[in-house]
């Protein structure tokens, strides 16, 4: 933290977008891993995630591919539950 240390404000007031600085994925037990072969690019993982962690990372001409932003993913597994083609596997987080 030392090099980009922020000053606190009274009452910890944050400007819009500043929460992006707070990486909230630190307490994850499981991480979702997306199998791009199985993925059909339906975007349901991104739509069902309350953190918006899955994002469109590529497009191979036929379908979208999704990756997960692990800075914010808390490992809840909702995306894996919602995936219609079981393309997401929850694996134990290894630091």
């Amino acid at each position, binding site marked *: *933290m030392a090099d980009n240390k922020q000053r*606190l*404000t*009274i*009452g910890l*007031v*944050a*400007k*819009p977008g500043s*929460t992006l600085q707070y990486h909230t994925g630190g307490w994850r037990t499981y991480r979702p891993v997306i199998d791009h072969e199985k993925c059909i690019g339906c975007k349901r993982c991104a739509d069902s995630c309350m953190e918006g962690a899955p994002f469109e990372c590529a497009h191979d001409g036929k379908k979208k591919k999704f990756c997960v932003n692990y800075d914010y993913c808390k490992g809840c597994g909702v995306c894996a539950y919602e995936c219609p083609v079981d393309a997401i596997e929850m694996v134990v987080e290894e630091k």
Partner: protein
Amino acid sequence: MAKMAVIEGSHAIAEAAKVCRPAVVSAYPITPQTHIVEDISQMIADGELMNCEYVRTESEFSAASVILGAAAAGTRVFSATSSQGAVLMYEVLFSMAGMRLPGVLAMANRSVSSPLSIWNDHQDAISARDNGWIQLWAEDNQEAADMIVQAFKIGEDRRILLPVMVNLDGFLITHTYEPVEILDQNMVDEFLPPYEPLYKLDPKDPVTMGALAQPEYYTEARYMIHYAQLCAKDVIEEVAEEFGKKFGRYKGGLIDTYKMEGAEVVLISMGSVIGTMKDAVDEMRAEGIPVGIVKIRSYRPFPVEALREALKGAKVVCVLDKNISMGMEGAVFTDLKAALYNVKGSPDILGFIIGLGGRDITITDIKNLTNKGFAKMRGEKVSEMEWYKLDVDILPEGI
């Protein structure tokens, strides 16, 4: 010329809140607080209190949330509660202090369940002592009314920016008629300027309040609340003195003292019991017994230095606690012992749990426990902490 009136404590509080020109008042009725907010809603309906919105809510949690939101939007806010209602507010009270949003809450002190009791003791406020709110304690109707005005000024001070709880004993103050000087609107306007928020919720300049703090920031954010409480010790004194000059009434800043000249046994408490204590001390002084009183006006911040100074000549201190920290002892007793620990020549301190759930505290009671203080002074064996007048006959066998 100031207008005097014989009015109920609740009405005095409502009148005091009115002249502070709050923009939002929200509360849920609970005995014995009800008359305060009933009066305020009537004032708004009658057009006596202009530019103020009264928000009816379905619970105290919501009432606290409404004043938090309104304070965040940059307005002056007021609420009142008691007992179980206060307990239901606790979560929001922490948030409001943490967000550094000033506002005033009149706490009509009452015991908490269970068993259900509607009568006065201090358990509701004492259990809320660590949430960051400044806690002021009133002795009578006039002081309660005056304290409301001072509370806004203290909390809104840029050095502080904390909400303030004004404690007034349920029924003993809220439902008691006393002569009270009604505060003059023009004088209060001069004393208490309009609230200028440091930050506010504004669509043109959006902010998030009370945002997530990682472990790197949380300690510092909490330290700032603590620091503001420490700064409030000066501000409470300043505001009390300024109020005294302006309105001609001074009741002390952090603490007040009574007949402390040469006092060997000193009685300490908060709230309306001080009045009974003063009568008892008057009678004992007339008999030549050297006893005095220290009244705590500010419980949080706890006036450590002021108490050390006031108790310099005392031999024994008797603390009257109308609360119990279960498994330990009375909260003021604990705090006072901590404040005097490591102070050379500090007095012996006795703690009394007294007046719980509305049990009457009489002049005779005060004299009796003062006698225990003198017994301690003479070197007799006296228990350090006592549940005063605990009726063992009605306890189940074996306890």
